[in-house]
């Protein structure tokens, strides 16, 4: 019988004052008892509304039921039937707007903490499982996957499980894509990503780093090399800037650069050779998850004051509620309804201040959100020594430039149908390269769909 009496089990976490000064994981994870308590809240509904809310359709009531039976490894196996990266998704998925938003328990009280339970199962598996995945028997077909971010890893994993010979081509020196260069250690420890990549390698996936497809090899050359299909999961790409004066001053970063220096190039470690500015007063422009990551990283690197500068109101912040909450707990200042108009430099062209205007919300725009409009005469300056632009990205132009017949949107995104098929036969694409900046789980969902479609296309050749 479901336990209707206990409230949703809180996630244990590091104290905000302590964690604001270290890069260790913020949320420390459920204990076994916490997992059992939380799992007991699940109604095990027959119509499983939560499953519809999951982009990869994990059989959620089933895995939670396994937890209540204390069959934690079995619970993990249920999740991994649908998801290649449970330990990652349990940490970074926006569950509150997906599975948990459909949970029946959420109508009267709070939804079951599905994400936290997923993480518990994945961590349990990683700690206790000694059995290595084995390479399935080969079906003799070769598929190339470009990019080792969430979408590429998922596509590769699903195909490898079906017996395909999969090679992942990664441009950077470490596999993982945004999971490694973008999402900080305190939100997703890199050891977890490494483990997920190793699992794929155990399944027989060949991961080649330092391979910039479009330069070292083109998609046509991959096809000539015997790859029967190609999946493009090359990710988001070039950072956008606001085109306001002062954006090339010293001390202005794109969030991608700031996070890449910190995470991939390990500037957060004391003995790192990667230079990064140790700024005192930092402004992060933007309101998404990446902005939260950049702001919280800047704080941990020693900044005294970090502000999020966002042109709409708090209700419109695109970041996950949990990330906003964590950022506030740590002391990040939220300057909402504020828009930068200029970055002011000193005599050495280093950032000195950020000039902003106040905004108010007008009529709804194309996105359905109320359009922010400038309040007349509201201009003001905030002293700053570092500004991080986190206002999105536009797709990397390399593959488009070097692949004939690959149709793209005017803004650069690759055009693909529901299965991920592009304008080129046997060339599929998904994730941020198609949608523009989105979430890890949506990218995974696209990788999963494409893997299924690639399988059908090759089998019917």
């Amino acid at each position, binding site marked *: 019988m479901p336990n209707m009496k206990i409230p949703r089990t809180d996630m244990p976490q590091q104290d905000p004052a302590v964690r604001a000064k270290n890069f260790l994981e913020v949320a420390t994870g459920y204990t076994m008892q916490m997992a059992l308590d939380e799992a007991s809240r699940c109604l095990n509904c027959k119509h499983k509304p939560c499953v519809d809310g999951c982009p990869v359709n994990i059989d959620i009531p089933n895995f939670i039921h396994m937890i209540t039976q204390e069959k934690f490894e079995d619970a993990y196996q249920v999740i991994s039937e649908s998801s290649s990266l449970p330990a990652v998704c349990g940490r970074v998925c926006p569950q509150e707007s997906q599975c948990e938003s459909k949970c029946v328990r959420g109508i009267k009280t709070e939804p079951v903490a599905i994400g936290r339970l997923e993480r518990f199962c994945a961590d349990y598996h990683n700690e206790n499982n000694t059995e290595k995945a084995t390479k399935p028997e080969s079906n003799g077909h070769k598929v190339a996957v470009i990019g080792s971010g969430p979408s590429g890893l998922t596509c590769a994993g699903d195909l490898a499980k079906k017996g395909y010979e999969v090679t992942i081509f990664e*441009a*950077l020196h470490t596999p993982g894509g945004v999971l490694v260069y973008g999402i900080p250690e305190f939100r997703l420890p890199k050891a977890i990503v490494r483990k997920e990549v190793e699992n794929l390698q155990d399944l027989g996936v060949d991961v080649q780093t330092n391979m910039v497809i479009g330069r070292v090899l083109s998609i046509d050359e991959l096809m000539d090399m015997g790859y029967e299909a190609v999946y493009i999961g090359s990710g988001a*790409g070039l950072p956008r800037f606001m085109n306001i004066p002062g954006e090339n001053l010293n001390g202005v970063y794109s969030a*991608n650069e700031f996070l890449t220096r910190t995470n991939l190039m390990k500037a957060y470690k004391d003995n790192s050779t990667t*230079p990064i500015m140790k700024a005192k007063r930092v402004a992060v422009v933007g309101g998404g998850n990446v902005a939260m990551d950049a702001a919280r990283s800047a704080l941990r690197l020693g900044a005294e004051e970090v502000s999020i500068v966002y042109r709409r109101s708090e209700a419109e912040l695109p970041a996950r509620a949990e990330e906003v909450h964590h950022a506030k707990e740590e002391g990040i200042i939220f300057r909402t309804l504020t828009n930068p108009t200029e970055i002011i430099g000193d005599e050495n062209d280093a950032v000195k201040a950020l000039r902003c205007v106040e905004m108010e919300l007008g009529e709804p725009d194309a996105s359905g959100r109320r359009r922010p409009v400038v309040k007349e005469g509201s201009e003001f300056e905030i002293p700053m020594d570092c500004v991080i632009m986190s206002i999105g990205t536009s797709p990397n132009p390399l593959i488009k430039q070097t692949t004939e017949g690959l149709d793209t949107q005017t803004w650069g995104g690759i055009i693909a149908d529901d299965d991920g098929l592009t304008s080129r036969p046997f060339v599929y694409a998904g994730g941020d390269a198609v949608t523009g900046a989105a979430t890890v789980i949506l990218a995974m969902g696209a990788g999963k769909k494409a893997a299924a479609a690639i399988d059908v296309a090759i089998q019917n050749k």
Partner: protein
Amino acid sequence: MYKIVSKQVLNPTVTKMEIEAPLVAKKAEPGQFIILRTDENGERIPLTVADYDREKGTVTIIFQIVGATTNHLNTFNEGDYIQDFVGPLGRPTHTEGLKKVAVVGGGVGCAIAYPVTKKLYDMGVEVHSVVGFRTKDLVILEDEFKNHSNVFKLMTDDGSYGEKGLVTNALEQLIKEGNQYDEVITIGPLIMMKFVCKLTKEYNIPTVASMNPIMIDGTGMCGGCRLTVGGETKFACVDGPEFDGHKIDFDEAIKRGQMYKEFEKHAYEESCNLLKKEVE
């Protein structure tokens, strides 16, 4: 891991290495660059392709010892392996349709100017090369340039070798002698390229400058290598590294290049101290 096939000291601060990287060698063109990491904790540094041998599968790099990473790289020897070697990156130099070109190189930038000089010369283009160095001891690739140029001018700041003066003096003289160039290609220190571009603008000669800003991923992801060209923000790694020299905001690029100077100086000194300890 990528094997160092050969190593040659060109002058006290400049070293040439030939790296085994068959896939990169197969595609590399003059004007493109690679990114390398010496070891697992190293930084990613961009270096322009100095030469390539498609059959041997090797790419040649020439680097000046300016910071911790290049200092460390210089301790590697023939037969050693470096951790990462990615490329070819950036767009190749545009060479089509050119009939008469002046290539102006300065210092270690000559290492980058040489492959395009060679390519143009081999294509049958009339090539005038002007190379400049601070002093005689720092001269590199003299014979290589000589053998691939119709006119060759070597300048030193102190007059210890070749002619005394700046590359701009020699270039202006060539122009005044009546040479009409389709294009000037300039590669070297920012301040030199700035003045080369200023000069060619006066004479209305299209000029391409090869930029080497601070980079991290080099694949079009971080935006660290951005510069202003004709009032627009451009990314050297995917839009360049070569741009219309008359439109580049050199002053901004010079200031952006200084951003980590203190950090780099400190890291360099530390790496020198480490080396000293190893020797002791």
